């Protein structure tokens, strides 16, 4: 299969900043016919991570990369090698070889494992879509705050929530499940007007909506330890229709909570 190698090499060596770089020792797999085992030797190479691409150079000053590891559909884990500070990049594809790399020390190893496990395009896309949604929520709650909270649950606010026209940021709307449970502390500015209707910390988080299988398949990289489990499972679907359904679904929940809050307010319980 052809690859636009010249352009790829240019991308590797151009001055766009690398996400991570450093020396690593790379295990060389050599099969000894007689001994029926893999001899292990390591070669020190200069590694450069850019996006979902891990390049390695013979020397730090080399003009061209020796090789490239595309980091989609892989997991990164510490490994039980004879070497200290070793970790492996393994692919979902069963027959594929793993890349075993050895760092200079514990901190370097940790930094590499962290950077590599979050390097996939899929992961990045997940985070961006999540932030897109958060920004939309922040906009909505900011707008809701501006309307007087003393007003009874009017059609104005209901309309506000379920009005798809208020989703200007979504050109390709995406679903992420469990949007509320992850950020229980609410979306309004802590310093600014506190929006009572977003005090999700007190209210229980809504149950997970029905899962949707992603159209983009399951090329998921190794989950970063600090991602909540729900985020890891959440597929992303660019289906517009589904987004409005999910949106309305959450919208109904909000409306109910807001009504409850308003009732409590009227009765002077707050």
């Amino acid at each position, binding site marked *: 299969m052809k690859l636009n190698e010249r352009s790829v090499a240019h991308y590797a060596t151009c001055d766009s900043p690398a996400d991570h770089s450093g020396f690593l020792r790379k295990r060389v797999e050599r099969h000894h016919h007689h001994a029926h085992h893999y001899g292990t030797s390591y070669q020190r190479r200069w590694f450069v991570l850019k996006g979902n691409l891990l390049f390695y150079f013979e020397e730090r000053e080399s003009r061209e990369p020796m090789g490239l590891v595309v980091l989609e559909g892989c997991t990164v884990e510490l490994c039980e090698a004879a070497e200290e500070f070793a970790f492996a990049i393994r692919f979902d594809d069963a027959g594929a070889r793993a890349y075993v790399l050895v760092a200079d020390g514990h901190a370097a190893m940790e930094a590499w494992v962290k950077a590599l496990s979050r390097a996939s395009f899929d992961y990045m896309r997940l985070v961006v879509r999540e932030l897109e949604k958060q920004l939309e929520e922040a906009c909505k709650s900011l707008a809701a705050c501006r309307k007087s909270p003393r007003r009874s649950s009017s059609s104005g606010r209901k309309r506000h929530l379920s009005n798809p026209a208020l989703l200007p940021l979504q050109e390709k709307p995406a679903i992420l499940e469990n949007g509320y449970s992850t950020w229980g502390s609410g979306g309004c500015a802590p310093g600014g007007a506190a929006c009572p209707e977003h005090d999700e910390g007190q209210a229980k988080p809504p149950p997970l909506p029905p899962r949707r299988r992603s159209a*983009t398949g399951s090329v998921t990289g190794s989950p970063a330890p600090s*991602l909540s489990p729900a985020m890891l499972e959440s597929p992303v679907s660019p289906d517009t229709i589904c987004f409005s359904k999910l949106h309305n679904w959450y919208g109904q929940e909000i409306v109910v909570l807001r009504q409850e809050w308003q009732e409590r307010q009227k009765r002077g319980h707050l």
Partner: protein
Amino acid sequence: MRYNERELLSLARQPAEKAAEIRMSVPKKGSVLKKRLVKLVVNFLFYFRTDEAEPIGALLLEHCRITKEEENVFSISFIEEPERKYCFECASEEQCQEWVEALKRASYEFLRRSLIFYRNEIQKMTGKDPLEQYGISEEARFQLGTHRQ
């Protein structure tokens, strides 16, 4: 340059963000437009002969320029060789526009810029850093102003 071709081939088999039969030409002398199955997966554009399971080739879509050419046609070129163009002739102007939009957003660098933008906007609006919950707020690659294209 060595690369993990096996994984790239596996990636080519994944469900695509976008796929279509499009007539395509490569920047080689005497190259003509040929019908190909063109498939966008993450930041790679794979192209197949329409009846084959393995792609003929892959284009990494970083540091590339997507240009709308004449009617129904767009091209992909790379910044270090702007005159070498991969040309794509779509079935309609609408299809052409869709592909141009999709390909412009297909790079990892584009995603990174989006992330930095949203992070900054959310921070301005809510006073909170949305990346903290992921434990990646300190990573250099997500900092505002670190990356310039």
